[in-house]
C-alpha cells in the first residue's frame, strides 16, 4: 500500500464518528430511494404483467341492454382490437360480521370458460361449468376475509331477491387490484365480486342474450378517444352510459393515484437527504483541509502534484459515501420488503415481489458519489490552490468585524461568551444557514411523516364525532315501509331512532357522470348528519339536492344548475334535479336530500333503508342482539366497534411509520449538529483552551460552544415547521380526491413531537461534544502552531 493510502485509512479511522454520521445520512438517502422507487417499480411490473396476462381492457362502457350480437359491430370500430360483452348486476351480500351488507357485482363469464378481456385468475377451485345452476367463482379477498372457499355457499341479494350460490372457486381479477367502491378504498370483507356463467346470470337477471357492459382493448397506436367516441355512438340507442378509458375503472384509478404518490416520495425524500449529505461533507472536509494545511503544503513541497492530493481527499470522501451507499442499499432492500409486504395487504396481485434492479443500485451509487463530489468540490479547489509556501506560515487570523449586532448595540446586553457565539455565527452565515436548514429538514420530515395520522384522526373526528353520532347503525336488506322504524323504537333501551333512505344513482351533468349514493335525511336530523370539514352541519334544502363539493367540481356544476339522476335500482327511471348547494364533506362523493324529496324523485311511497339509533349505553349489547334477530335487518353495527376496528388497523401502521421517520430524522439532526459541533470545537479549541488558561470554568466554555449549537438548532425550528406543512400539503394533494379529502390538519402534538425529536438529537450530539470539551488538552492545544 502506498504511503498516501495508509494516511487515507488512518485519517478515516481518526474521523470515524463523523464519517459514520455522514455515511448514515447518505445511507438514509439511498435507503429511501431504493425502498420507495424499487417498490414503485415492483408495483408497475406486477401491474403490467397482471394486466397483460389477464388482458385488462382499455375502454369500458355500461349500457341499458343490447343483444350480444352487437359485439360484432363494436369489434368493427376502427382501432378496436378485441371486445368482451358481459352481463353485470349489482349485488349485496349480507354477512353476519358486517354492519352493512358487502356490496359488489355479479359478472358473467362466457360459456367457453376464459374471458376474452378482463379474465380472472383462479386461486382455488375451478371455473363454473356451463349449464350447472348457481355455481360461482368468488373474489379471493372477500372469500379469504370471511373464511369461504370452494364447497361453501353464499347468500347474495340480486334485484331484491335473496339467492344462494355455491362457491366452486376463488379468483383474483385485474379489475380488483384495489378494492374500491364509489365511496373509497374498502376493506376486503365488504367488497364482493362473483363470476357465473352467462346462462346462469341471464336466468338470475331475467334477460336472455343481452349484455349491459362492454370492454374493449385498443390496437397499438390507435386513439382511445376516437374509439370512445365511436363506442358511444354505437351504444347510444341501447342506453349507453358513456365509455371511459382505464381512468374510469375504480381499481385502476386508485392504483394510479397511489403509485403517483409513491413516485413523488421516491424523489423528494432522497433529495433532502442528499442535500444534507452534501452540506455535511462540505463542512467536515473544509475543516479537515484547514487542519491539514501544513501536511498538504509539505506533500506539495515533497513533489506531490495537485491532482494526486485532490485524489487523496476525494477518495476519503468517496469511501465515506460508499459505506453510506452500502448501508443504504441493505436498509433500502429491507425496508422495501416491508413496504411491499404492507402494500400486499392493499394491492391484490397474483405475483407481487420486491426486486431491486441493477438500475437502482447504479442510481443509488451514482447519487452517493455525486453527493460526495459536490460536497468536496470546494475543498478540492482549496487544496489545489493552497500555495505550499503560504501553508508553511501560520494562517492569518480569521477576519472578524464589528457586526450588525455590534452596530445595533445588542452586544452591550450580552456577556463576552455570547458575543463570541454571535460573532462566530455572523462570520459564517452560510454554515449557519445550512445548519438551520438541516435541522429544518429533520423537523419537516417528522411533521410530514406524522401528518397523515393527524389527517386520519381529523377524518374520524368529523365522521364519528359530528356526522355519525348514533350509537347503533341498522341496515335493512331492502327498502321497507316506515313501520320498520316503529319496530325499532319499541326495542327497550332505544332512546331515539332516525330513519334514512339511500339508493345508488348515476348522476350526470353534460359529459361528466359518477355513480354515487343518494341519501334521504329526515327533518331535524341529529344522529346522522351531513357535516363539513369544519364540523359545520349542512341543512337539507326544501327543494333540490346537496352535492359533495368535489362531486360538483367533477361534474362542473354550480348551485342553481341542474343534474340528471338515474336510479340504478329502478332501471329506466331518470329525472332532473336542481343543485341547491354543496357540502364540503371529507369522504367520498354523495348526493343528499330530504327524505320527502327522494321519495318524490323516485316516485315511491315513504320507505326506509336503514336507521341511526341513540341507545342507552348500559343496554347496548342487548339492543344489538334484539335488533339483529328482527326480520329484514341486514346488519347492526355499533359506533364503538367501528372506531375500535379503525384504530386497531391504523395503530400498527402508525407505530412502524413513526419509528422509521424518527430514525431518519434523527440521522439528519445528529449528522448536522454533531458534525457542526465537532468542526466548531476543532476550529476554536485554541480559543477555548486559552479561555480555560485564563480561568474560565468548563461550564463557561461549554456554554460558548453549546450556545452556538443550540442557537443553530433553534433557528431551524420555525422554517422546519413551515416546510413540514408544505410537505403535508403535497401529501394531501396527492391523495385521491374522489375517495377522501385530507384536511390540512396538523396537531400541536405533531409539531411538538417534531421539535422534541430534533431537540433530543441536538442534546445527544451536544453531550458527546461536551465530553470532548471536558478533556481539552490545555497545554497541548496551546503548544501546537496555528490551526
Amino acid at each position, binding site marked *: 500500500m*502506498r*504511503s*498516501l493510502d*495508509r*494516511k487515507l485509512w*488512518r*485519517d478515516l479511522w*481518526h474521523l470515524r464518528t463523523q464519517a459514520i454520521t455522514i455515511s448514515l445520512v447518505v445511507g438514509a438517502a439511498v435507503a429511501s430511494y431504493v425502498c420507495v422507487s424499487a417498490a414503485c417499480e415492483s408495483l408497475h411490473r406486477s401491474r403490467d404483467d397482471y394486466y397483460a396476462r389477464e388482458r385488462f381492457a382499455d375502454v369500458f362502457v355500461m349500457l341499458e341492454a343490447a343483444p350480444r350480437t352487437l359485439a360484432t359491430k363494436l369489434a368493427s370500430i376502427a382501432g378496436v382490437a378485441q371486445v368482451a360483452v358481459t352481463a353485470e348486476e349489482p349485488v349485496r351480500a349480507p354477512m353476519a360480521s358486517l354492519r352493512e351488507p358487502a356490496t359488489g357485482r355479479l359478472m358473467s363469464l362466457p360459456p367457453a370458460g376464459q374471458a376474452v378481456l378482463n379474465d380472472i385468475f383462479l386461486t382455488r377451485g375451478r371455473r363454473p361449468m356451463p349449464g350447472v345452476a348457481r355455481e360461482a367463482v368468488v373474489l379471493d379477498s372477500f372469500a379469504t376475509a370471511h373464511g369461504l372457499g370452494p364447497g361453501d355457499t353464499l347468500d347474495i341479494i340480486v334485484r331484491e331477491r335473496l339467492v344462494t350460490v355455491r362457491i366452486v372457486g376463488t379468483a383474483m381479477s385485474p379489475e380488483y387490484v384495489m378494492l374500491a367502491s364509489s365511496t373509497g378504498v374498502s376493506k376486503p370483507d365488504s367488497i364482493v365480486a362473483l363470476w357465473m356463467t352467462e346462462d346462469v346470470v341471464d336466468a338470475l337477471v331475467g334477460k336472455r342474450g343481452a349484455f349491459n357492459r362492454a370492454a374493449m382493448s385498443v390496437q397499438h397506436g390507435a386513439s382511445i378517444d376516437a374509439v370512445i367516441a365511436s363506442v358511444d355512438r354505437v351504444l347510444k340507442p341501447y342506453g349507453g352510459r358513456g365509455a371511459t378509458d382505464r381512468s374510469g375503472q375504480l381499481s385502476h384509478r386508485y392504483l394510479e393515484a397511489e403509485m403517483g404518490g409513491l413516485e413523488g416520495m421516491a424523489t423528494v425524500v432522497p433529495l433532502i437527504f442528499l442535500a444534507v449529505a452534501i452540506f455535511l461533507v462540505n463542512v467536515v472536509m473544509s475543516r479537515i483541509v484547514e487542519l491539514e494545511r*501544513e*501536511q498538504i*503544503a*509539505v*506533500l*506539495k*513541497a*515533497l*513533489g*506531490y*502534484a*495537485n491532482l494526486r492530493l485532490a485524489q487523496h481527499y476525494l477518495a476519503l470522501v468517496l469511501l465515506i459515501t460508499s459505506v453510506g451507499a452500502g448501508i443504504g442499499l441493505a436498509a433500502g432492500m429491507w425496508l422495501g420488503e416491508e413496504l411491499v409486504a404492507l402494500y400486499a395487504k392493499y394491492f391484490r396481485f397474483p405475483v407481487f415481489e420486491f426486486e431491486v434492479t441493477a438500475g437502482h443500485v447504479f442510481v443509488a451509487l451514482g447519487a452517493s458519489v455525486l453527493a460526495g463530489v459536490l460536497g468536496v468540490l470546494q475543498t478540492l479547489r482549496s487544496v489545489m490552490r493552497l*500555495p*505550499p*509556501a*503560504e501553508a*508553511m*506560515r501560520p494562517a*492569518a*487570523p480569521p*477576519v472578524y468585524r464589528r457586526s450588525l449586532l455590534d452596530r445595533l448595540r445588542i452586544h452591550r446586553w450580552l456577556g463576552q461568551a455570547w458575543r463570541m457565539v454571535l460573532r462566530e455565527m455572523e462570520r459564517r452565515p452560510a454554515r449557519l444557514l445550512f445548519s438551520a436548514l438541516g435541522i429544518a429538514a429533520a423537523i419537516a420530515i417528522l411533521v410530514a411523516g406524522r401528518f397523515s395520522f393527524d389527517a386520519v384522526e381529523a377524518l374520524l373526528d368529523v365522521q364519528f364525532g359530528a356526522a355519525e353520532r348514533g350509537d347503533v347503525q341498522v341496515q335493512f336488506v331492502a327498502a321497507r315501509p316506515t313501520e320498520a322504524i316503529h319496530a325499532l323504537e319499541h326495542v327497550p333501551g332505544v332512546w331515539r331512532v332516525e330513519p334514512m333512505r339511500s339508493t345508488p344513482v348515476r348522476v350526470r351533468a353534460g359529459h361528466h357522470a359518477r355513480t354515487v349514493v343518494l341519501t334521504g335525511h329526515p327533518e331535524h336530523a341529529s344522529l346522522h348528519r351531513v357535516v363539513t370539514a369544519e364540523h359545520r352541519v349542512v341543512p337539507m334544502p326544501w327543494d333540490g339536492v346537496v352535492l359533495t363539493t368535489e362531486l360538483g367540481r367533477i361534474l362542473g356544476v354550480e348551485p342553481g344548475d341542474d343534474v340528471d339522476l338515474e336510479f340504478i335500482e329502478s332501471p329506466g327511471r331518470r329525472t332532473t334535479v336542481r343543485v341547491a348547494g354543496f357540502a364540503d364533506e371529507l369522504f367520498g362523493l354523495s348526493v343528499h336530500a330530504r327524505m320527502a324529496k327522494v321519495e318524490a324523485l323516485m316516485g315511491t311511497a315513504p320507505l326506509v333503508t336503514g336507521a341511526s339509533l341513540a341507545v342507552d349505553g348500559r343496554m347496548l349489547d342487548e339492543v344489538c342482539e334484539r335488533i339483529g334477530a328482527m326480520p329484514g335487518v341486514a346488519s347492526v353495527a355499533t359506533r364503538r366497534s367501528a372506531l375500535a376496528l379503525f384504530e386497531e388497523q391504523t395503530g400498527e401502521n402508525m407505530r412502524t411509520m413513526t419509528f422509521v421517520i424518527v430514525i431518519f430524522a434523527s440521522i439528519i439532526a445528529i449528522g448536522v449538529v454533531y458534525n457542526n459541533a465537532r468542526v466548531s470545537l476543532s476550529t476554536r479549541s485554541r480559543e477555548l483552551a486559552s479561555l480555560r488558561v485564563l480561568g474560565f470554568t468548563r461550564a463557561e466554555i461549554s456554554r460558548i460552544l453549546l450556545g452556538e449549537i443550540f442557537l443553530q438548532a433553534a433557528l431551524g425550528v420555525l422554517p422546519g415547521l413551515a416546510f413540514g406543512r408544505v410537505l403535508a400539503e403535497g401529501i394531501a394533494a396527492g391523495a385521491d380526491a374522489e375517495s377522501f379529502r385530507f384536511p390540512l390538519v396538523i396537531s400541536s402534538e405533531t409539531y411538538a413531537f417534531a421539535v422534541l425529536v430534533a431537540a433530543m438529537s441536538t442534546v445527544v450530539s451536544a453531550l458527546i461534544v461536551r465530553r470532548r470539551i471536558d478533556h481539552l488538552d490545555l497545554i497541548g492545544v496551546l503548544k501546537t*502552531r496555528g490551526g
Partner: protein
Amino acid sequence: MPIDAHSPILSAEGLTKVYRMGEVDVHALRGVDVALGEGEFVVLLGPSGSGKSTLLNILGGLDVPTSGHVRFRGEELGGASERELTRYRREHVGFVFQFYNLIPSLTARENVALVTEIAPHPMSPVEALGLVGLGERLDHFPSQLSGGEQQRVAIARAVAKRPSVLLCDEPTGALDASTGRRVLEVLETVNRELGTATAVITHNAPIAAMADRVVTFGDGRVTGERRNERRARVDEVSW
C-alpha cells in the same frame, strides 16, 4: 557574486516578494542576489522576519517571486508552471522545516516512503533513516519520537530522493542545543557523503562556523557575505 570553487547550481537575481498577510502588505524581499554552488554548504544568517524563509521558499519552488529571476542549472524557474515546479521539487529539492512537518498518521518509514515512492532514483527508506541514525525507530509514529528524532526523520525524508539541493529552514529552531547538534551532524554528513548542495537558514550565529560560506540577511536584503577559511566540526559549535 563570485562563486569560486563551486559552479552555481541555483542562483537568484534581483528577487522581490510582496505578499498579503491578513489585511497587511508585507515586503519580504527587496532585491536579493544569491547563489548556491554544487556541493556547497551555505548558511543564511539573519533575525526573524528578515526574509530568509521567503527566499528559501522561492529557491525551492514553493513560491514565486513578485519580480526577479531564479535559475536552477541555468534554467529559469521564475516563469515555470505549477506542474514544472512540482516536478522540480519532486526530482531536485529536499526540504527540512523548523517544525518537522511530518505526517502524524504515518510512521517514520512511511513518512520517508512518501518521497521514495514518487522520486526517480531514491534510496530506500531504511537506508535514509540509517543515514540519520534512526535505523532502530522505523515503525514509530511522530508522536512517539522526540523533537530531534522527528527532525532527523524529516532530514531522512528530504535526502532519500538524493536531491541536488537541500534547503533547511531553521532546522534546529525548535530543538535544545545537544539535540540540535545531532541534527547538524546529520546535515553535515549528508553534505559530505552525498555531495548535496545545502542551504541552512538560521538566526543562530554560531552555526555559521560550519558553513563554506555565510550570507547575512536583514530587512529583506543581503547585508553581507563571508567565506570561512575552514569549516568547523559540529562539536566545535556551541550556543
